[in-house]
Structure formats: C-alpha cells, structure tokens
C-alpha cells in the first residue's frame, strides 16, 4: 500500500498547480488509486463508518467524542519542539505571511477542485463528503512535506473554531475517574471532514521524524491485536521422557571437583552481595573479611598455642620453685615476687614463664659461691654489730 502510494505522491505534487484546471486527468488518476485502496478491504469498514457517522449525527455529542476531540487537539501541541530545519528566524516572518497567503489561495483552489471531483464521483451526500475528505487529506499531506510552513497556518485556521470550544471543556473534569489507555489511539467514530484532515496532518510529521516514543505504541497495537494465548500451565506439559521413562535408577552426582565447587559457590555468593546498608551489615562484612574480632567476643579467641594449656599453669608458678629454692630468705622472697609478676602477664606462654624461672635457678646456681661468701660476711658483720 505504501509502496503503491510513493510513486503517486510525486505525480500528484507535480500536477498540483495544474490540478484545478485539468480536473479530468486528476480525477482519473485518483479514482484509479482509490479503487486500489478500497477494492477488497475497506468496503465493510466504509459501511460501518457510515453507520457510525449517521448515529453520531443523530446524537449531539457523546462524552467519548468530546474526549477524542480533546486528545486530538492535544496531539498537535506536542510537536512544538523546533528542529533545525524549520526554525523560524525573525526576518522571515514577513515572507512567511506572504507565502501563507499564497498557499491559502492555492488551498482554496484545491478545495474547490476536490469538491468538484467529489460531486462528479459520488451521488450520495455522505459518499461525496468521504471522497472529498480523502482527496484533501492526500493533497494537504503532500504540501505539508513540500512547504513546512503552509499547513501550520492552515491548521491554525481550521482549528481556530474547535480550539475555542476546547477551552470550555475542562480537562480534569473529563478525566477524573477515567483510566486512560494510552497504548491505543482512540478510534474515531465521527468523520467530519475537518477532523479527518487535521488528524492526518497531525500524524504525518510524527511518523516522519520517527522518534521512538511514537513508534512504540504503534507496535503495541499490532501485537495486542493478535490472539490472547491465555495462561500457561507451567508443569502440565508432557514430560520429555529421557530421565523419567521406565524409571531408570539415577544416582546423585556430587560435584567431583572440590576446588571448583568451592570457587563457584564463592562467586555465586558475590553475585548476591550488596554494599552494606547499615552498620550491622558493615560489621558482618568486616567479620567475614577478618578485619575485626569475631562475635561473641571471647578471651580465648585465636589462642592457638596456649589452647591446650590450663590456666593454672599460667598462674600457680611456685611449683617451679619447690625443688631448688630455699624455703626462706632473700632469694625465696625475690623469686616469689617474680612468680607474682609472671602470673599476671598474659603475653607470654606458660612454657616461657617456666623457662624464665628456671633461668633464675641457673643464675643463682652459678653465683652460689659469691652469694655464700656475701652471706657469711654479712652474718659475721651482724654478729659483730650485735656484739659491739
């Protein structure tokens, strides 16, 4: 359909100035095309459209129509973002106006021409209107591409009347309590000529720019139209039958690679690891990384060497004195002080403490003579001092 139209588009644009004069030729080409278009598919559509139109004419204006009108006018406002090509410049306002005037005259000519054609083709009043609006839509659509400024003024002039009516429609009033399904463009039941032309014009530049936002919903329409596949019974299908057929004996197969499974478990855990979200999680992380002591805090944490040593061996050190130290006297006194000091020291192992004490034993053993000498002298001096 689109491919068919493309060559014709050029044709018609070339003929445009001549169209109003050479009505016969133009009517021939366009009527042949409309046959192509409507041949099979749209005859039903046309009938239903006619019916709808009639009913629409009977009623004054339904709520849905008002909404459609509103949405239709809204659509056009969305295209106000200027692109580089149609940037208005301050100087060319004048030129634009002149062009618009010229275009206006041309459009008027075209409209009368279209009317003529329609009256020639159709006998029925409705049919005539239909043909006329189709022709106009095509013509004005093309001129929109030719001169981007022209349709704007055209649109303004045609929308002026409905736009003022729109102001009376309170948007929020209409929309309150309604769900708007924005995937689907509303179907337009009423087909007044102006409406039809305007909508075609509004949708043209959109599809031309081809931005994603406008493409998306169209795709939805296409897909929604396809059959609803209903719910899926996830486990109701017919089993594959490789493992279940004839119930062969299956053995559990543990991972034969120990290191691999450790590594993959660790990687899996990292996949679900998030940055800590509070201080407790931070602590969990630090604990796991080994940066803090583990909970519950325990005096004996990480006590590898001394784990088997009883506390008594750390504290009751006098036992190491018994077999060498005199029972009384200054050496005994000194060694007892050493034991007290060592028993309070948490930083050395019990073995070290014992060795420390035994070092003193060897030391005193080595100095035995000197000590004896000193002690005998001292005792003599004492005796002297007592006698003296």
């Amino acid at each position, binding site marked *: 359909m689109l491919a068919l139209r493309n060559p014709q588009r050029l044709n018609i644009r070339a003929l445009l100035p001549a169209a109003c004069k050479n009505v016969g030729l133009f009517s021939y080409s366009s009527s042949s095309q409309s046959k192509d278009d409507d041949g099979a598919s749209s005859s039903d559509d046309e009938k239903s459209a006619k019916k709808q139109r009639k009913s629409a004419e009977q009623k004054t204006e339904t709520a849905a129509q008002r909404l459609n009108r509103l949405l239709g006018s809204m659509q056009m*406002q969305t295209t*106000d*973002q*200027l692109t580089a090509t149609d940037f208005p410049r*301050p100087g060319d*306002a*004048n030129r634009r*106006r002149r062009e618009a005037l010229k275009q206006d005259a041309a459009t008027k000519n075209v409209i009368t021409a279209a009317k003529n054609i329609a009256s020639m083709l159709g006998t029925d009043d409705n049919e005539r209107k239909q043909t006329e609006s189709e022709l106009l839509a095509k013509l004005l659509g093309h001129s929109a591409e030719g001169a981007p400024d022209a349709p704007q003024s055209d649109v303004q002039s045609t929308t002026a009347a409905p736009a003022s009516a729109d102001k009376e429609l309170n*948007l*929020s009033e209409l*929309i309150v309590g309604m769900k708007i399904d*924005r995937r689907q463009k509303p179907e337009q039941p009423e087909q007044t000529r102006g409406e039809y032309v305007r909508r075609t014009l509004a949708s043209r530049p959109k599809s031309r720019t081809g931005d994603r936002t406008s493409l998306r919903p169209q795709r*939805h329409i296409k897909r929604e139209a*396809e*059959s*609803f*596949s209903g719910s*899926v*019974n*996830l*486990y*109701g*299908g*017919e*089993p*594959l*039958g*490789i*493992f279940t057929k004839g119930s*062969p*004996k*299956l053995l559990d*197969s*543990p991972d*034969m*690679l120990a*290191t*691999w*499974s450790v*590594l993959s478990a*660790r990687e*899996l*855990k*990292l996949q*679900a*690891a*998030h*940055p800590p*979200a*509070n201080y*407790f*999680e931070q602590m*969990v992380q630090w*604990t796991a990384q*080994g*940066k*803090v002591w583990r*909970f519950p805090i325990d005096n004996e944490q*990480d006590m590898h060497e001394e784990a088997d040593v009883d506390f008594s061996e750390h504290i009751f050190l006098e036992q190491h004195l018994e077999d060498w130290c005199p029972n009384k006297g200054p050496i005994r006194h000194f060694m007892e002080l050493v034991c007290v000091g060592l028993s309070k020291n*948490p930083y050395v192992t019990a073995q070290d403490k014992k060795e420390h004490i035994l070092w003193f034993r060897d030391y005193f053993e080595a100095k035995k003579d000197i000590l004896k000498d000193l002690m005998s002298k001292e005792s003599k001096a004492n005796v002297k001092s007592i006698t003296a």
Partner: protein
Amino acid sequence: MYLSAQLRLLSRCRLTRHIASGNGTHYTIAASPATAAKEEEEHIEIPKRIQRSSTDLLQALASTVGRDSTAPHYKYHDDPYLIPMSNVAKRTYALSKEAGRKAANWIKEEHRELFLHQEAQPAIEKFAPSMVYTEQSDVDVDSLQQLIDQGELTDATLVYNLLEQKGVAVSDALKQSLLELVCFYNNQEPLPEEYIEERWFLQNSRRRERHGKTWKDGDLAEKLYEAIEPKTPQSYAALIRGMAKYLQCERAYALLQEANERQIQLDTNTYNAIIQIVSYLKDSADQRWQLCSELLQQMADQQLHPNLNTLNALLECISSFGNFKLARSSALKLLAEFKQLGVVPSLGTYYYLLIIFCRERAPVSHVIVDILNEIGGKEFKIQHPKDTYFFATAMDVCRNHLHDKALAKKVNDLLHTGSNYDLVGDSFKESIYYRNYLALLCQTESIEDFMQTYDLLVPNIYIPEPGIMEEILRAVEISGAVDQVPRIWSDMVIFDHTHRESLLLYVLRIMVDNRPNAELPAQQQLPEQCAKVALDMFNKIEESAKRIRKVSFTGQMLGNILTLLVRDAGNTSSFEKASEVFAYIDKQQHRIPGTPADSALLEYVEAAVVHKAPTQALAALQYAVENNMETSALAKCIHDGYTLSEVHLAKLKSLVGEGFLEK
C-alpha cells in the same frame, strides 16, 4: 558473678516446672514443698545449644533495620554536602570511597615495614602485610595448598613453578586442585572479593562480555592437564568446564567425546557446562535441541541425576531458539520432566521462561501471571548466576509486554519479600527495574497515587533518567496537575536535567496551558510558584550559555516565561522581572530564533495596563510590529487601557497607522 551466685541458689532450691495456663513454661523456685511435690517427677528438657556462626548475631540485628527511603544509602558520607543527587554522583562517590580503600591497601603493601607491629591481641592477620612470593622465596607444598585454598591464583602459579624448578614433587591431588583453580579463572586474576562497590557498578561497562572465546589455548591449564598422568575423570572434568566457561566450545565438546570413548565417568555439572554452550556448537534450533537431547540421553545412560544447573542450562539454550513455538513447547516439556525429577526451579529458571515466552515478535504471553502465582510470597536464595536477572526482566515484561500495573505491583511485592532484595542484581539492573516500574506507574496510575510512589523512591533509591522524567511530565500534563510542577522542577534542577531542551519546553507548556484557578485555595500559591520556576529557568538558561552543554533560548520559550511571570499578578516584582525578560527579548531579537506567541505578548501588554506602564506596552507593540506579528489586538488593548499622553498617542499612531483609531 551475680549470675553464678543465682545459679548456685537455684541448685539448692527445688526447680519445678510450672505450666501457667498453657502459655508456655516458667521455671519458678518453689516456695512450699507441698505444691511442688506432685510435679516432682516431671522431666526438664534443656534445649541443645545451637551453634551460631560469628555473623549470625550481626545478621539478626541487621535484619531489624529496614531501608529508610528518606535517607541516602549507608555507604554515602553522612553530610548534606556529600549526599549524591544524580546517578553520576552516586557512582562517583561510591567508587571514590572504594578508591580510598584501595589506596590505603596499596600503601600497606608498598610500605610493609611500617605495618609490622601488631596492636591487637589476638592479632588481626588481615592488617598485616600480605606474604610476598618471589623467585627467591623458600616454598614448600604446604604453602601451595594454602594458596589454592585461599584462591590466590597468581601466587599459587608462581609457587607451583618454583616447586617445579626445585624439583620438589607435587602430588597429583594438589595438581588437580591447581588445575581446577586455573581453569575456573582462566589463569586471570579475578577482581578481589572486597571491592564490592566496584562489582556493584561494574556491569554497566561489561555487558558485551560473553561473546567471543577467551580461553587461553596452550596455557598453564593445558600444561597442568598434560602433567597429570594417568588422566582421571577429575582432570577431564576440570578442563572441559574451563573450556566451556571461556567458550572454547569445539575443543570442550571434543574432549567430552574423547572421555566418553574412553569410558570415563563424568559428573552432572560437567554435562551442564557442555549444555550451556550447545548454542555455540550448532546453528539451527532443531540441531541444538537434538544435541541437547543426546547429551541428556548420555547422562541418563550414565545414571547421572540432573540438577538445577542442568535445567537452567537447557532453558538458556532454548531461549536462543528463533522459532518461538518450538521454544515454548520444549520449555514446557522440560519443566514437567524436572518437576518429576524433584528439581526445584530457581529465579533464574523463571527468568529464562520469561525470555522464552515474552518476546517482541511472538504473540503476547501471560506466563508471568502463572509464574507469580507459583512463587508469590516465597523467599529465595541465590542458586544460579542468572537468578539476579529475574526482577529486572519481570518488570520489563510488565511494562513493555503486558502493560499491567497490578502485575508490576506483585513483582514489587515479591522483591520486598524477605531477603529477596539481595537478588536484584547490581546497580544497573536495579535502575532498569525502577525505570520500568516508574514508567509503567506514571502511565497507568492517577497522578496522586503515582506521586506517592515517586516520593518513596526518588531520589534516594532511584533517580529518574531524562526519558522517564519526560514520561512523568506527560502524566502530569494529561491530568493537568500543574500543582506538581514546582516540585518536579526542583527535582529536575537537582538531578541536572535542565540542559534538556525538550524537558524545559514541556515544563513551560504544562504551566502555560493549565492556568491555575485562583478560586481554589489549593492553587492560590501556584501563580507565584510558577513565576519562580519560570524565572529560575530563565536564569539557568542564561548561565548555561557559558557552559559546554548550553541551551539556547527560542522565542516561544521566552514567550512562555513571560506569560508565567505576568500571571503572578499579585506581585509587582514579578512584573518588573517580566519587563526585564521582555527587554532581553527585544534586545536580542536577532539572536533568538522565533518570536513569542501572540497570546504571550497580549498578556504582557494587559499586565502593563494593570501596572500602568505605557512605555513597556508600547515597546511590546513596537516589537510586534517589527516582527510582523498580530498587532491590532495589542493596539486596541493599549488604546482602551490607558488615557495616553500626546507623546504616546503619537507613537501608537506611527506604529499602527491612523486607520486603527477610526475603527
């Protein structure tokens, strides 16, 4: 001390069990032996001690702390100036914090002599400089074993090479472990475990990862494999899995066939690895499915019980089928089969189901409804790497495939069940999830309901991208909720969206098109707020001229700003500002493309009438005349609004001509 004293007391008294109205058990110290006598024989059962790990207590405490949506994430520094307000800032701040950690680590390693002291008792080994292995190190088999257990790939290979040089015999079991380690990482040092932020933000840049072959042919792994004689099933399995993981597909498959020929019994996970690469081995869907069936048959012949990874690998293969009918039917067959085998699906399974059933070019499927019925309210733990893809995909299906708000809410509920949030993936998937969620809600919910969700999520959990902001503005426009615009504008300023021309135009258009109703008390502040927004925008655009990403004024934009300033009628300063804006338009008219709308000028002139400023009004008229705009309404307004002085009257005449006054 106190406790032990109490306990001693207890043992002396008689301990009886007293059942108080069935509520539970109480231990009381019997006051009188008479009442206790009959219950004496009752047996006291002391519960067994439950072994707790060192982090259990902390985890229990952490689970009591929920997410506070009004506060930034814990990882950010608690200082108003350092709270990130855009996606870029979030990423930058988090990664800079981690960069600080890396720098500290580097110093610790570089100046190891400074960290040899041990403050803590017991010592914390993590704070000590790590062991460095060089060519000269004195190494033995134990240290190799230790390094493999820690997963230190580089050091382990170095130590292994040293041992080889020295001629120390390494046992086959150890070689096998090293082979597995090397195969798992493809002899490439992985990202250290502790760089959690880096991993969180990594996926953004690593999406095209799994495409080509990355396996290192003839590298250490294969040498190790050669060194193991005779070949064990384990060595086959390790090499096959390594090759399959790094997409050396052909050789992996060949190796599997070789193992089968030699009657070597492999295990389920090795078959899973091969099933995962079936889509690289065969081109068409039919061939792939056939190969899958063959592999499954082999497993059945070897009496291997398939597991969850088998199911997911098969579904991954099916998801690559172009023919959606075949894909759907075979996926359902598989599910039924594995259900009978007692394999419980993980979230990753459902992820694959979603991508099999909900495709762009296939009919719409409502499989997600059934999936949610199946797993709603359940809590999941990670079992498969693809488990983290589920939520982002499910939300995408809700938005783009089905467009269903109720489903989206269900998915969101599931995400916030238990610790399921851990499976949201990384920052990238999380933002996809929220992007789809917000976009869907703003299209389907009323603006009031939507704003509640918006308040909850923005900005601390999620910051909308400009595209989503546009969707939100569209929702605001449709419901005419102009009262939300000032708030959204302030968010846009914070999130740095003000250089997007389309967004600026959108905001202006919403405010101009929805004139606030002064009658309603709720909207009385609005004209003033709108004027502020407009002025703010004007200043922002003016400032942006100096920057790289600048936004240029258009006539229409300025016209809208002018209108909004003028509408704030109660405030004289606004009119002064409006005059300034107009002066700007007038002065720069050759630089600004386009002209303000006629209605904007008219509103400005009307305001000038109210504020008795004929000079401004005439300037506007002059501008209109010079730019070929609609002038008669303006002139009429000026003429009717003022009693003009001679000078002004003369100017008016010279601008629009004598003819006008006659009418």
